[in-house]
């Protein structure tokens, strides 16, 4: 019988929520354990096996020189490297610090700033190593994780859409919260994949899946302004979990002080 593919799950600067989403795949965990060898997953087990690994799932952003060295090592040991979640893919909520000088935060926050060894920015993994696939979200959609693993095992491309959340929202039969409630919904520029979770509860999408392919961020920002949102409000809407995604970052800078 063919050797089971070996999976490793890695953590960098993050809240562990994406790893928990993996563990939350309760109905499928036995099946997953059957299909793959979970070789390294500290959130689940202290027992670890050395690399190389067929699939590495990486959670968290890269924020220290030590982590930068570690991600290079992980890349060298991994056949497929997949980022899971907004932190690993775009720098996460902690990338908010990228808009200010980090040394000033360090001076203000820590009694002994000299012990802090940090990079200037909170980086997406792709700033340092090639990434084979991204799963978006804060946290990831656990069914997308399942789909990813199933696809890699079958040697096919994972079915992970790149289009806007609106399409998922309308397929689900929901009425647009922007049109019916004038909510500042980011759905039109955000990648689908969550199943339109927030609009289903009349909440505007706040963009945890990051920019959709071809996202027209400037056009949406212009519409939000037309609908009465101020510059600072637009900045705040664009600066959450994917603040450092280039499309969101550039547009948010344009509305600063506006």
């Amino acid at each position: 019988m063919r050797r089971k593919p070996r999976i490793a799950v890695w953590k960098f600067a993050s809240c562990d929520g994406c790893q928990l989403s993996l563990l939350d795949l309760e109905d499928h965990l036995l099946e997953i354990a059957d299909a793959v060898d979970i070789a390294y997953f500290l959130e689940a087990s202290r027992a670890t096996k050395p690399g190389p690994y067929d699939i590495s799932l990486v959670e968290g952003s890269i924020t220290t020189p030590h982590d930068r060295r570690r991600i290079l090592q992980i890349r060298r040991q991994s056949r497929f490297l997949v980022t899971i979640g907004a932190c690993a893919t775009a720098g996460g909520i902690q990338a908010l610090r990228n808009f200010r000088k980090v040394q000033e935060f360090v001076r203000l926050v820590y009694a002994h700033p000299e012990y802090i060894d940090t990079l200037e920015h909170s980086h997406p993994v792709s700033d340092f190593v090639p990434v084979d696939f991204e799963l978006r979200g804060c946290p990831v959609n656990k069914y997308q994780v399942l789909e990813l693993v199933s696809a890699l095992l079958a040697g096919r491309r994972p079915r992970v859409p790149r289009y806007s959340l609106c399409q998922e929202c309308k397929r689900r039969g929901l009425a647009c919260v922007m049109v019916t409630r004038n909510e500042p919904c980011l759905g039109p520029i955000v990648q689908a994949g969550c199943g339109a979770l927030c609009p289903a509860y009349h909440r505007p999408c706040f963009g945890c899946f990051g920019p959709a392919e071809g996202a027209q961020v400037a056009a949406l920002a212009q519409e939000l302004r037309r609908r009465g949102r101020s510059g600072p409000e637009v900045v705040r809407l664009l600066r959450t979990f994917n603040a450092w995604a280039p499309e969101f970052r550039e547009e948010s800078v344009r509305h600063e002080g506006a």
Partner: protein
Amino acid sequence: MNAYWLSRDRLDALLEALKRRGYRVIGPVMREGLPTLAPLERARDLPWGVEARAAPGRYEVREDAPKARAFDFVLTPQGWKRLLFPPERLLFRVRRTDLGYEVTTPDPEAEPPLALFGVRPCELRAIQIHDRVLSQGPFADEAYTARRRAAFIVVVQCTRSLETCFCASVGTGPEAREGFDLALTEVTDGFVVVSGSFKGADLLQEMDLPEATEAQQREAREAVARAARSQRRRLDPQGLRDLLYGNLESPLWQEIGERCIGCGNCTMVCPTCFCTTVEDGSDLSGREAWRIQRWDSCFSVEYAYIHGGSIRRSVASRYRQWLTHKLAGWQDQFGTLGCVGCGRCIVWCPVGIDLTEEVARFREQHAAVAAQEEQP
């Protein structure tokens, strides 16, 4: 065609008659504050006293109108498309067996037939366009065809228009003349009913309704005519195809592209948009695989992926694709406009792009260029 009188208190008898014939009745009911198409159990679940207001990028509902009328909301946010042509459907499933493979396909005939209660004339026209596209070509969609053939259609003629309606200008409403099983017109105290098929006539006969009086019929005719007159938006089909084909490089596309957010809402709520994609899935064990058909949108970058990448990177080119297909290419392909004048793409566009206004601007620009060329 004989017109009958259905008083409000006999609506339930009509619903019962449909259910007795085995139909699953779908109609407008209030869900989370909005008129929504869902299983319709009793006439009192209809949106009595609900009025919708629509504008580009805006839709709101008022529930304080007199409770005497059930269809003044005019259009639900989404139409009937999802019932006959669902957003997602399983095409087949394959299982590994000891001997090879076993393929199973869902049987559309196994579903109970649908009675669509409260189809508006523009929406009926959209269904007829889908018949042409999905059932009458060389690659008929069997599931759609089976569902459609079994369905019973109760049209409700429009006695009120939304601000975004323009069916009168494209000739699809506010009155349907054929293609339904029954057509109701809402007037004071009840409905004038006509049948449009054998199935419809048979049901009316069973209900043993009185004939509508001349006054009731006149009120119905006048209400529909008033709805038509109240429409301010227009889409002039005259020369539309050549207008768009003749302006494929117009700078107006770029200008629209700066406003369009490329979200695809227009295509999702459009009752005629029919593009789908096909996706394959497989399970962890590799024992089972499946193929799913899903609504697609020409506003996705991926929609136009070919070898080497997407051929429509700019949103301007995607909007142009949508509008020229809907209003021009459709005529070449199917001999009809792809637009029925329901205005949903205007209402549900988060940035309120209005195709009637955009087409008018193309006309103006075209006329201006023509005038310039005539100058010596």
